[in-house]
């Protein structure tokens, strides 16, 4: 079953740290969001393989926006 890693704050995507096909582990930082001039790490809540990367640098995201799809 696919799960998504979602933005926990609004802001701009500063960096995407994974690529499609990468294996990620629970607690791993997958995306960094820039908000309030702070870099905020978005971590994966689960282990999984990256099926889709839905965002790129400079994209603006809202809280809850899906960023990464994990298999």
């Amino acid at each position, binding site marked *: 079953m696919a799960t998504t890693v979602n933005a926990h704050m*609004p*802001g701009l995507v500063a960096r995407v740290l994974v690529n499609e096909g990468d294996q990620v582990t629970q607690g791993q930082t997958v995306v960094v969001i820039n*908000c*309030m*001039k702070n870099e*905020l790490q978005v971590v994966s809540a689960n282990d999984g393989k990256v099926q889709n990367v839905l965002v790129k640098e400079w994209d*603006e995201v*809202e*809280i809850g926006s899906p960023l990464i799809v994990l298999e």
Partner: protein
Amino acid sequence: MFIIKNPGIETLVEDWPGRLGYLGKGMSTAGGMDNLALRFANLLVGNPLGEACLEVAGGYLEGEFGVDTVISITGTDISPSINGQPVPMWKSCRVQKGDILKLSHFGEYGFRAYIGFAGGIDVPLYLGSKSTCLFGSYGGFDGRKLKQGDVLALGGAPQNLTSLEGRGLKDGVMPVYEREWHLRAIPGPNASPEYITEKGMDYLFSQPLRIQHSSNRSAYRLEEIKSGFFAREDGGVGGSHPSNIVDHAYAMPGALNICGNTPVLLTADGPTLGGYMCALSVIKADMWKIGQGTPSRDYIRFVSCTREEALQARLEQKKILTEDSLS
């Protein structure tokens, strides 16, 4: 005491009205970004209105109480829970030693929440205030935002906690939260015709301006102005861009800097002087709304106002911050 298990995005000790009297030395006031929610949080737990609270921007704070006390949570609806059970916002509630307070993220409206503790927060006064100036790294708790493992000393709570629990606000007292925040403002000191065209001023006072993602306690950055805004080709001796002027003092907090083509509303931790024009000043009674403006989501609309209206608004706000507002 209150033990920080997860500090969340940005949790700070802030009081009100902050650190007064040092603008001339380059020190901004700091203090609660939403001073109204902060003062209501104190009112609900029986504190002096300006006592220090925790200001939670964004959310995700988790902490453990080391004492029995009474707390209140105001501001954005941040879905607070004690030991996993939801607790209401804008109402004081009793907590016991060992209880775990957990906050979710900011709600549909607003961005910051305030936690008031009966007896307040026991951090040292620095130059007359308990407020954290985040960008100056002074005041509050070691001059910084809270981090995991911090132990926050609380002030001595009153003997009779029972009399403080269950206090709420009467209908119609709670501030109304929006996605488009209307801020009353007085034009100037750098306005039309010398600095900005009439068309430019009309633009500032007629458009909802989106809050940029980079907005924080120093300043709220708004979407860029349009062409035809400036009345001058350049800043003369102040600089090459028409937004440049010779350095001057800013009316802090609440001045709207025009920084290049970006309107920047200067707030609690902002600069006290600089070389950008200031097109308007937000009235003190409406400054609380900026603290609830959500980056990358909400809008600000400036509404022209007179000095007399500004003074009246401040008086009216003062009237609701009394025990008469409690239910």
